[in-house]
């Protein structure tokens, strides 16, 4: 009887796991099935012609370029904010510091704030400063969104740096500012993983750029111009009645899924490689 119960639940467990993996397969299959026929060279080398709801010609270059600009800009800005914070809570503050724990808690909490809230907040900021939807607005909103991810994933690596390493450098007469170099070198795989994770989040997020970056058929040439992004290219063009425009959405979904897939596997590979060296 006890055996039967265990067997019953074990079967359910395996079934549940299969259902979860099966949904992943279904998602990937659906995206590839619709996206692959829509893919062609024009898709990634041309911008759409004649308006994105009705234009039959052209591709997605505007969205690819826009997403690229936003990801690069926001990751750069995010690193600029998060690296000093990670250094501060791990080098300058004592190991059991309340401020450090509070910072960790707050970035965990901020990580859970939905992107639509960051988008709405970014929008209120832009209204306040009199900015229009622009590349800059998108970069700021996305940077706010990914900074908690950057902090948390770099902090996880920085926390386990041996204390001896810090002490050795300090005892040689280095100031804490000067040992940052040593620490950065130690956590560099962590920085790589953090960047890969946050790029994955940044490139796929639609709700934060909806208000802030806007949408355009052209490639932005300055920070004050609106920028198209891949997620919004999918979202807007899917609702078009014209099949050619819808195809662009499916092609964009395929490109986006592929990018995210590569990023998440690379992040996993890097953190694995690092933890192997550690032990």
């Amino acid at each position, binding site marked *: 009887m*006890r055996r039967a*119960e*265990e067997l019953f639940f*074990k079967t*359910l*467990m*395996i079934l*549940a*796991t299969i259902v*979860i*993996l099966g*949904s*992943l397969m*279904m*998602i990937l299959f*659906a*995206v590839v099935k*619709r996206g692959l026929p829509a893919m062609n060279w024009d898709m990634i080398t041309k911008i759409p012609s004649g308006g994105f709801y009705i234009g039959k010609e052209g591709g997605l270059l505007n969205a690819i370029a826009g997403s690229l600009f936003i990801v690069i800009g926001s990751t750069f800005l995010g690193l600029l904010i998060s690296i*000093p*914070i990670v250094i*501060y*809570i791990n080098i*300058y503050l004592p190991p059991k510091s309340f*401020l450090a*724990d*509070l*910072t960790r*808690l*707050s970035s*965990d*909490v*901020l990580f*859970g*704030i*939905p*992107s*639509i*809230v960051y988008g*709405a*907040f970014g*929008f*209120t*900021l832009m*209204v306040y400063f009199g900015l229009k939807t622009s590349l800059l607005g998108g970069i700021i909103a996305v940077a706010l969104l990914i*900074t908690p991810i950057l902090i948390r994933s770099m902090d996880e690596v920085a926390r386990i740096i041996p204390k001896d390493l810090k002490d050795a450098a300090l005892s040689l007469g280095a*100031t804490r*500012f*000067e040992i940052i170099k040593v620490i950065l070198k130690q956590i560099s795989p962590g920085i790589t993983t953090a960047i890969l994770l946050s790029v994955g989040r940044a490139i*796929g997020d*639609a*709700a934060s750029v909806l208000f802030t970056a806007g949408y355009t058929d052209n490639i932005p040439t300055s920070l004050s111009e609106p920028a198209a992004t891949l*997620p919004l290219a*999918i*979202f807007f063009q*899917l609702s078009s009645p014209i099949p050619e425009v819808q195809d662009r959405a*499916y092609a964009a979904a395929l490109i*986006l*899924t592929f990018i*995210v897939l590569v990023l*998440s596997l690379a992040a996993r590979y890097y953190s694995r490689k690092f933890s192997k060296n550690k032990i």
Partner: protein
Amino acid sequence: MNKLNHTKYRILKDILARNVMLGLTIFSLLLAVIIGIGLYIKSAPILHDHSLWSLISSSSWRPFKGEFGFLPFIMGTLWVTLIAIVIALPLCLLSGIYLSEYAHPFVKRIVDPMIDILAGIPPVVYGVWGALVVVPFIGDVVAPHFVEYSSGYSVLSGGIVLAIMIIPLIISILTEIFAAIPKELRDASLSVGATKWQTIKFVIIRKSTPGIIAAVVLAISRAFGETIAVLMVCGNISQVPHSVFDSGYPLPALIANNYGEMMSLPLYDSALMLAALILFVIILIFNTISRIVLVRIERRFAL
């Protein structure tokens, strides 16, 4: 003399760097407060005209008449979240226990990266899948057995898509919690003759209940805030849904869908920012509580 100056310069640099970093750290702590204040300032005009209670208890949404009732959107959010949790939680518990207690390391090596990928898939791609697969499935296959007509764009479709989206989050927290339970506890249970399943049932699940609840609360707040995916499959009709096959219009979808025209009507932008503020406050509270619970669990078992 020169050397002394150099040392002073180095110390000065250290102090300067420390203060800049402290400033950034404090900024990151204040960010939540700044977001709250920013959204509150924008939503103050509508709170000045209507009471918060009348806004969230009224179901008439007619922006051009100045009527902003949030009830349909709040109910829409609650419906999709409830459906998502009801679907996701059993799957996650079963699969999480399997992965951390039974699964062969080889199986874990295959399944873990796949769950990572599931976590990384952008919401909009989930939306595409929902619109391509889930909506027609609900509309053509499931709904005809229960109701006369449903387009498939329903709270059920939204709930299913959301369920798949929150699964990776719940599983990753669950496996962490299960892994944090000390080996001695398991050994003690096994050594008095309990089977593995009994150990799971009476020791592991019982010991990790607070963690499981925290994971569910985190998942709920993720589901509350999800925007684009539910926007693409829920149908977006401002009504209080009466069955799972009815269309719904969750709060985040409302914000995202109307930002274009919100500047054209008085108080419209204020109403949408209030919606964002409501989301923000609820999720902030849920997140803070569950994160504190999770940190406590980690500490207690680490000792």
